């Protein structure tokens, strides 16, 4: 990221952010509500466009990417949201399989891969359940499974434990660490200092859209 600014009308969401994230890093973006954590993540997967500055991912300038190429860029990412964003009317299997269907994988491969990833997150028993019938922690595990099923290079997690109890939060964190050790770059936006302390890594501190400091824990 080079001198990135993001404005929503007159409101400044991010101001002059310059940041380099190497491959396979486990990085935290920290700060209070309204600091610009979610906006920063959105700029990475082109959920929003920068107002000024440049964002480069593997050498690709996101300001110059065509509308048609955006889905292909997004396949580099696995995204986890605080509110899980699961499709309530689809089964757990279908919620995870949608990623592979969208990239045109064969049915047999999808079945094998989805079952395997659900086993990894400990949710293979809930294959045919609908998300509303699961607990928050279980739903977030499904969201993690969906985020990693396509073997993304970068995992973005926006307050992944924000709605969870401590036990569920630890499970999610362990899963994220496991995928990080397998080679993915993991970027977690959180205001939970305890979570950062437990995990360790580089921390970007944001406040009111400005990069305050970078620390290592």
């Amino acid at each position, binding site marked *: 990221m080079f001198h990135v600014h993001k404005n929503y009308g007159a409101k400044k969401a991010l101001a002059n952010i310059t940041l380099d994230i190497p491959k396979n890093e486990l990085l935290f973006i920290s700060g209070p509500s309204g600091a610009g954590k979610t906006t920063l993540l959105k700029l990475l997967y082109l959920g929003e466009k920068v107002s000024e500055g440049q964002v480069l991912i593997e050498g690709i300038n996101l300001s110059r990417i065509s509308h048609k190429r955006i*889905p292909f860029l*997004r396949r580099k990412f696995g995204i986890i949201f605080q509110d899980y*964003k699961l499709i309530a009317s689809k089964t757990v299997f279908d919620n995870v399989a949608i990623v592979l269907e*969208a990239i045109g994988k064969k049915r047999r491969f999808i079945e094998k891969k989805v079952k395997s990833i659900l086993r990894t997150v400990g949710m293979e028993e809930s294959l045919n359940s609908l998300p509303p019938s699961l607990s928050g922690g279980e739903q977030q595990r499904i969201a993690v499974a969906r985020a990693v099923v396509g073997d993304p290079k970068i995992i973005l997690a926006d307050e992944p434990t924000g709605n969870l109890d401590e036990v569920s939060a630890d499970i999610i964190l362990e899963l994220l660490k496991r995928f990080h050790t397998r080679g993915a770059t993991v970027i977690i936006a959180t205001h939970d200092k305890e979570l950062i302390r437990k995990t360790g890594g580089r921390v970007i501190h944001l406040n009111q859209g400005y990069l305050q400091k970078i620390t290592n824990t």
Partner: protein
Amino acid sequence: MILNYKRAVQDILDHRFLNAVTIITIAISILIVSAFALFFVNANEIINSWKKGIKIMAYLKTEPPEIKIPELKRKIQRIEGIQEVRFISKNEAFQELKKQMRRQSSLFENLKENPLPDAFEIRLKASFQNQKKVETLATRLESLPQVDEVEYGQRWLGKFTSFFNLFRLTGYAMGGLFFMAALLIVANTIRLVLYSRRDEVEIMRLVGATDSFIKAPFYIEGLIQGAFGGIIGLAALFVGFLLISLSMEQGISPGLFAIRFLSPGAFCGIILGSTFAGWIGCYLSLKQFLE
């Protein structure tokens, strides 16, 4: 592709009521449009058959000058556009009239003499069977000194054709309006479905689904709605057609008109049209929604 079909069918099943309403509305629109088409096809055929049978009756004067029939017949036959001339004597005409009015025979008993004139029945060549040419011929025949009066059905047929053409224009306009209505209804239904699934669409976009992957099942849904609406509308029309043709056979005009159903070409055209309406309705709402 199979996956897209499965997704489309699943969508239809998930939104049964919405889809049923759309299909029924398209069916009603198609029923109205194709009922107009059916009427025009049959009315056109009847008018054409009437036009083919156009004949001019030239009634001769009863008073002198002395009429030499064979000479007059030759004279008429020489006029351009005339195919056949037949002389009907006043006695022949009277006998024919009596035959036709057998039930009212008492009317003729009190007649002291035959009131009918001698006449020529004149049939025209096919190329002369239009209003202007018939009128010119009639004027020419009327100018003959032996001819008292000329009569032909084209007068009222011409008026009827003009009225029919106006009616046809109204039909086209109504057809267009119903097509537009079907189109907007499909667009609206797909939009409602899209709104009810906007979270799903957003998630699909976030996981890297292309626009075509997202749109495909909706397009299939629109095509299915259009095709089913067309088939149901035409099926309803066919039932109506059977009932009407049955009542015509048993009713007051047996054998007068043989009405027929739409040709296979028109049938396929209407279904293709309604399928296209489904597709274009879908296209409109997807364009707006995904932008």
